């Protein structure tokens, strides 16, 4: 029989207002095995913990029940306190009478009754608790950063600065991400390339950083501190150790009409290409879909002109096996496809562009050399209409996103301002639902666009854009404040397309067993208090993969994720969770049901010899759990038809005892 102590917390008035805490502690005193029961204002306080420690010593308690807040809050606190008093920390159970009771009930009598029942269930469980000892696992002192945009770059640099090895895996031929495509950055208007490319070069030069560009994560196994990752290094058909990045091949390649993705298809590149001048690594890549040599074996011009002998048409994808202690996800975003927004004539007119395309059209390294020209006829546009919230803050019409993409208000103000600055003869209209500019120096920036640069901000949405035969775009819109219809003859329309997580994120999340929300953004462990950690241990989140954010915010979060990863890598050993599953080999049927449901790959099977009751030996297939890999989710215990699988700390019999205690009549 256990000697159980019950401690009921008031949580100030959080619990005590709707639960009669004295009645709870008095009633639970009569439960079997309870030798001590009390209540106190703040159990989590120093003096509250001392009450617990004293009672453990004075009453020789073997089990403790704390009726308080969610175990997510203070379970660790009370376990530590119990351990300090000499009790195994896993002999402590929490009855959640705050989140699951006092906060959701108004009637004090009913709340009190429920608190007693919850306490009773915890007591019933403690009776079957057994002391558990946590094991330890080593930590591989290397981090993986998935995605080489500004988020991934900043995280990698910070981790490398702390002295740990970091690998960046980037699916594009160069790191840099979306920021390389931007022209200027708000609110200070410094050039994106000028501030980003030094960081890219730092990555290439840092001896702790290895860049796997044009590569993708193929498989992730293992667990916090011990991830095993397979990286597919896609064939570039160029030996990166030999290529000097001279670019001669990209000038001689006869295949000239390949849509240039770096300029979002606004111009063309060759079949062998370097995305842009400051690419890191600066090596050529042959696009196998368009290369004549790879398609038909006829050409070979680039190999002839390459003085370094770097071209290798026989190159194959390479699989690299690496081990990591921590993984940072920095997969970023894409603007949404606008094919469902026909009213804006995006697919009908070349002069209707997305904001990211507009960045390229104003960028000195872009297809127009930085002069703003209409894509259709190369003339100078005089009237520009910006449409905000295209697909953001959308009613549930199946086309857009319910969330605010957060960056559009600011970059649109930037675009409008820059156009007016460079081309004072233009008229610029911005249609908005709301203008949202919280952030340091953000609102001042927007007000400058309105007040100093004379940008016409109009509250209302554009209903229709109709291209006219003479090349003009007829924009039909409403001005909600003036309550009137507007008809604007525009030369260009720029759509602030919503941003969404990169499509590769979903598959990656499955590999990492990291959770996502309904919009495919990675979920954080706690929205306020653990914003850069995934609920899956050892996985950290950096940048837009977790939610829309601008560059300053992304960089802050990237450094925060790095700090968390460094904290993990700095440890030599990790304490394992002792609440892991185990299989009773005598009951195991070897049916594989548990193996199929295990999300962590912790279960394997072996043929084992058994001495049977009739003194014969039999070879039976039985399951065994790797306790270092098991996360204690319990999926196997439910799938097991014979009940051979059981979870330490949450055993089948403990859960049954809790259910019995709850169902027991008063």
């Amino acid at each position, binding site marked *: 029989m256990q000697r159980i102590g019950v401690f009921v917390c008031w949580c100030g008035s959080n619990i005590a207002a709707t639960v009669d805490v004295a009645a709870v502690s008095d009633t639970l005193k009569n439960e079997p095995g309870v030798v001590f029961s009390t209540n106190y204002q703040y159990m989590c306080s120093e003096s509250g913990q001392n009450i617990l420690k004293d009672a453990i010593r004075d009453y020789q308690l073997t089990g403790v029940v704390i009726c308080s807040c969610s175990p997510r809050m203070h379970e660790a606190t009370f376990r530590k306190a119990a351990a300090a008093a000499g009790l195994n920390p896993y002999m402590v159970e929490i009855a959640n009478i705050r989140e699951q009771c006092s906060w959701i009930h108004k009637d004090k009598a009913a709340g009190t009754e429920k608190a007693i029942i919850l306490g009773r269930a915890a007591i019933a469980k403690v009776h079957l608790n057994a002391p558990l000892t946590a094991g330890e696992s080593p930590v591989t002192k290397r981090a993986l950063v998935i995605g080489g945009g500004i988020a991934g770059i900043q995280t990698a640099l910070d981790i490398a600065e702390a002295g740990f090895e970091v690998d960046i895996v980037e699916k594009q031929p160069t790191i840099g991400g979306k920021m390389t495509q931007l022209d200027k950055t708000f609110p200070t208007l410094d050039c994106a390339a000028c501030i980003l490319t030094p960081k890219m070069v730092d990555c290439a030069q840092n001896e702790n950083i290895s860049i796997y560009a044009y590569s993708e994560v193929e498989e992730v196994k293992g667990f916090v501190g011990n991830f095993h990752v397979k990286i597919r290094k896609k064939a570039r058909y160029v030996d990166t150790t030999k290529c000097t990045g001279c670019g001669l091949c990209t000038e001689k390649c006869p295949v000239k009409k390949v849509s240039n993705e770096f300029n979002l298809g606004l111009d063309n590149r060759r079949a062998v290409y370097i995305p842009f001048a400051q690419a890191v690594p600066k090596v050529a890549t042959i696009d196998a879909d368009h290369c004549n040599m790879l398609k038909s074996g006829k050409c070979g011009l680039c190999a002839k002109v390459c003085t370094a002998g770097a071209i290798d048409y026989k190159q194959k994808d390479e699989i690299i096996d690496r081990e990591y202690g921590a993984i940072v996800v920095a997969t970023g975003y894409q603007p949404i496809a606008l094919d469902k927004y026909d009213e804006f004539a995006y697919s009908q007119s070349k002069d209707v562009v997305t904001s990211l395309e507009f960045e390229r059209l104003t960028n000195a390294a872009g297809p127009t050399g930085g002069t703003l020209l209409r894509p259709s006829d190369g003339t100078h546009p005089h009237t520009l209409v910006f449409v905000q919230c295209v697909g953001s803050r959308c009613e549930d019409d199946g086309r857009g996103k319910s969330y605010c993409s957060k960056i559009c208000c600011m970059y649109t103000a930037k675009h409008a301002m820059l156009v007016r600055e460079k081309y004072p003869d233009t008229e610029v209209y911005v249609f908005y639902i709301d203008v949202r500019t919280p952030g340091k120096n953000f609102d001042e920036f927007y007000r400058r666009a309105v007040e100093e640069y004379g940008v016409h901000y109009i509250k209302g949405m554009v209903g229709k854009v109709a291209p006219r035969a003479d090349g003009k775009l007829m924009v039909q819109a409403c001005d909600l404040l003036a309550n009137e219809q507007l008809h604007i003859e525009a030369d260009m329309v720029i759509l602030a397309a919503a941003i969404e997580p990169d499509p590769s994120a979903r598959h990656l999340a499955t590999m990492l067993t990291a959770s996502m929300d309904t919009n495919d953004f990675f979920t954080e462990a706690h929205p306020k208090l653990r914003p850069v950690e995934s609920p899956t241990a050892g996985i950290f989140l950096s940048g837009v993969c977790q939610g829309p954010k601008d560059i300053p915010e992304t960089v802050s979060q990237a450094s925060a994720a790095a700090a968390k990863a460094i904290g993990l890598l700095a440890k030599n050993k990790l304490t394992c969770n002792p609440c892991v599953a185990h299989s009773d080999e005598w009951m195991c049927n070897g049916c594989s049901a548990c193996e*199929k*449901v295990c999300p962590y790959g912790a279960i394997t099977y072996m043929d084992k010899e058994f001495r049977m009751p009739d003194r014969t030996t039999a070879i039976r297939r039985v399951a065994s759990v790797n306790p270092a890999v098991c996360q204690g989710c319990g999926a196997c215990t439910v799938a097991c*038809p014979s009940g051979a699988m059981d979870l330490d700390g949450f055993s*089948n*019999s403990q859960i049954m005892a809790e259910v019995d205690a709850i169902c027991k009549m008063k």
Partner: protein
Amino acid sequence: MQEMMIAKARELLKSGAVQRVLGWKAGEFAYDVEPAVFESAQELEKSFVYNDFCGSNLSKYLIAQSRKEGKTLVFLKPCDTYSFSQLLAEHRIVRENVYAIGIPCQGKTDGETLKGKGFTGILSAQCEGDTFTVHTLYGDKTAARADVLPERCLNCKSKKHMIYDELLGEDGEVLDSHRFDMVEKLEKMTPDERFAFWRGELSRCIRCNACRNVCPACTCEKCVFDNDASGIAQKAAADSFEENMFHIIRAFHVAGRCTDCGECSRVCPQNIPLHLLNRKFIKDINELYGAYQAGEDPDAKSPLTDYTMNDAEPGIVYHRGGNQ
């Protein structure tokens, strides 16, 4: 067919290809046919039978037989091959120790059903087309096939063998059966009516465990109902709801693995239509996760132990009219 089977079995035994034969042997009365293991030609000659009473599914016996030295020859009717295939998928049978011969089946009757229809002094029975002839002490009597076959055979799901090493006779097709009709009828009842229906049926249960013992999905090394440590054994004996609980738990345990062979209802001495519980699960799985029949494709992923993005959420219970 019986002669062909004996000849085949004798040949394989003689050549040493198999060490034993799993089949059916005649009992005291014509309808007392039971599963048996034969190890010699003499034993085969003496009592091996294959007739319209050979309803029992031999797959489950392979769990024990395939763990023995040498090979076991087994005769499997189409519906038995579903169970065989499912047991292989669950690693319960050592495949290389089994030689499976598929045999045709036109539906099997049993003594209880015939006696229930008023036949006495039964000597043997024969089915030809839709007419069923029963030879009795009091002369030959006939009945329509539909009248003497159990529901599981009238709504046979398949005449096709899912897995075999050799086939005697012709293989059939998967049938477009009406096996879910009765389940639909039960679904249309109000919750109270349905509860009353099952209380009525299950109250007759005497906990003889025949359904569990015959079930090819119930093959646990140690059944939870026999395991004091499971915390379930005592629950099922708590009160008058005992039998109900036993059958509900059992239905959950075989959900997604039941091949709908109908053995549970065949062996029930109280004639409880137990297979309807399992069929409800099969029907629900079909509707919620797409068509799936355990035992059909050994490589198919069982919906209940496989997660996909399109899986039904728990809230589906309410959408389908469950009590909030």
